[in-house]
């Protein structure tokens, strides 16, 4: 995503992990409980340095597992603290049980997820299997294309999660190594402006308010359970509007506006790729090359994936004739990746909806090159010419 550099003085070069750690330092959460895992380790290493040097007032809890990391986050958030953490891959998988507890108890924990493949076979490189495994956990998921976006998204995630209309935890995803370890130019926000933007966390209730004792996490039987879930479902659906509001306000304050998705040269496109995160950058180069050859190609990059902005994404794709959804994760359902089924389902039932195919790519850090994107566009033109979607799902980059 092109970033307007309005003030040269605030411009720095940082890796994705450094930018996230720096954002956490600026947010200065009350509690941070974390456990190291590649490729997100540097976030906690750098944050620990800020802690060691007294640059944050956070209580740093260096726990003995990710399960305990998220459990301590739940305890701290229930005690009225602003809580942050970071993880990747197996770490997120180990947190899985507690992710649902955080969202079910409506605790606005914010977590950076540096996307990495899941075992087996063990692999430390990027794909989205980890966060896609948590897509139904009731967490808000925001995917970042660049270092700048990961940095900006973290501040917005705090505002969105803590909004009393939402009160739902949020994960900010960035691509392992590709974004976490790549050095990019980015524009920083002044500490004071960050403080103004994120404000103070105002919990609705706290375990530490001992004058008003509360019971949290009670056993809930069929008489009430579904009603809790109904309320939670309403809240996460409503988060979409808050994401838009906060993204707009962020733009007004800092000159970089964010929405639910990014549409790149999509307006008059005949064919389009839908893809999350850093692969969008590669795809944009392919789009530009093909546009130079007079081909009407475009890109849609969802930024908010949970809740899924199905209406907006479907509407944005309605003028396109053929779409390929690229998933950096296989749901192993035998019917493509999760983004594919979501996008296809969003378009289903609309008159003259585009043909939609899905391709899995880049698992375990396999390179996705401009040529790969061009080949996908070629395939989409073939769908246009034949009028047949052909093979609905499959793999590329193999």
């Amino acid at each position, binding site marked *: 995503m092109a970033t307007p550099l309005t003030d040269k003085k605030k411009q720095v070069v940082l890796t994705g992990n450094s930018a996230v750690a720096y954002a956490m330092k600026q947010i200065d959460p*009350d*509690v941070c*409980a974390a456990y190291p895992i590649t490729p997100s380790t540097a976030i906690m290493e750098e944050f620990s340095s800020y802690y060691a040097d007294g640059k944050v*007032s*956070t*209580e740093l*809890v*260096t*726990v*003995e*597992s990710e*399960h*305990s*990391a998220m*459990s*301590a*986050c*739940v*305890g*701290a*958030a*229930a*005690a*009225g*603290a602003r*809580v942050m953490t970071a993880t990747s891959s197996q770490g997120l998988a180990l947190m899985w*049980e*507690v992710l649902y*507890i955080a969202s079910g108890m409506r605790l606005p924990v914010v977590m950076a997820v540096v996307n990495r493949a899941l075992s087996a076979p063990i692999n430390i490189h990027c794909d989205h299997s980890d966060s896609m495994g948590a897509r139904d956990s009731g967490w808000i998921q925001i995917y970042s294309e660049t270092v700048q976006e990961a940095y900006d998204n973290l501040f917005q995630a705090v505002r969105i999660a803590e909004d009393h209309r939402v009160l739902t935890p949020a994960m900010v995803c960035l691509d392992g190594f590709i974004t976490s370890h790549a050095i990019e130019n980015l524009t920083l926000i002044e500490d004071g402006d960050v403080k103004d933007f994120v404000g103070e966390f105002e919990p609705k209730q706290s*375990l*530490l*308010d*001992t004058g008003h*004792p*509360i*019971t*949290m*996490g*009670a*056993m*809930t*039987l069929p008489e*009430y359970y579904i009603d809790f879930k109904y309320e939670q479902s309403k809240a996460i659906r409503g988060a979409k509007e808050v994401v838009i509001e906060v993204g707009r306000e962020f733009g007004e304050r800092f000159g970089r506006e964010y929405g639910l998705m990014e549409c790149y040269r999509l307006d008059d496109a005949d064919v389009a790729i839908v893809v999350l995160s850093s692969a969008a950058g590669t795809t944009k180069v392919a789009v530009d090359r093909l546009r130079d050859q007079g081909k009407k190609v475009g890109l849609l990059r969802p930024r908010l994936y949970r809740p899924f902005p199905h209406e907006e994404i479907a509407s944005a794709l309605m003028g396109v004739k053929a779409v390929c959804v690229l998933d950096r994760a296989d749901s192993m359902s035998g019917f493509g990746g999760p983004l594919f089924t979501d996008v296809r389902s969003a378009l289903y039932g609309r008159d003259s909806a585009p043909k939609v195919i899905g391709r899995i790519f880049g698992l375990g850090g396999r390179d996705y090159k401009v040529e790969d994107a061009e080949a996908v566009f070629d395939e989409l033109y073939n769908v246009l010419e034949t009028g047949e979607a052909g093979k609905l799902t499959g793999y590329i980059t193999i």
Partner: protein
Amino acid sequence: MATLKELSAREELFSGGHRLCAGCGIPPIMRLLLRSAGAPVVATTATGCLEVGTTIYPYTSWRISWIHSAFENSAATISGIESAYRSLKKKGKIAADKDIKFLALGGDGGTYDIGFQALSGALERGHDFLYVCYDNGAYMNTGIQRSSATPLGSATTTSPAGSAHPGKGQWRKDLTRIVVAHNIPYAAQASPHNWRDLAKKAEKAFNTEGPTFLNVVSPCPLGWYSKPELSIETAKLAVDTCYWPLYEVEDGILKVNYKPREKKPIEEWLKLQGRFKHLFKEENRWLLEETQKRIDSEWERLLEMDGKRVF
């Protein structure tokens, strides 16, 4: 230490009307614990009998702030709560003179087994909290499955007394010793039949800075196949047979708090409980002898350490 009169005059923080079984050891333990704190308590409980029996939305037995998160994370949850307290106090969001005690609770399944790692981590990090394990010697909430706290030979639903395998085949894990090996300032074993000892230990633990631990034997008529009206006597016999010695380790010094004038044979405790019924068959008597031998040797070891520095 508070007298019984003083303790009984304190506010009841664990309400009646809960769904724990008749004769369950947990409620008297909880009532005494909460009365002994001497300051507001924030507690968390692992999934299990205590959690299920005291909540069921929209009811609660807890007149203190309380949270249940999952089965294996009671110690990690309290770590987060206690860290939030320190952070918010540092930032002036909680009054500097406000004192809160932090209590993590779990059964033997949630403490000896699935929550063992989280407990060890929290002890090592030195959070200021008290962990209390109510040890009834099996997964009672899910229907009496064996845990690492289950006594040798005990019949449970996953170690039934069959012709080939007469109950649980292993000796129990000595969790208190493992906890002591974390070199924490205070750890002790207690029993609900000895209210004075239990209250004193709870008071001491609550008022010690840093991680503290109480392992409390908790009779379970359902899983022990014992008479509910005999629960307190059963607990007493666990102590008088030296199956469950009352001792504490304070700043590294071990002290045996109770030495029975006449050490009773283990059979007296076992015969009150249906889970050991098969041990009295002729072909299983070797298990009784084995149990007695092991208890004798562990009791001797404890007496040898009495008054000595263990770390």
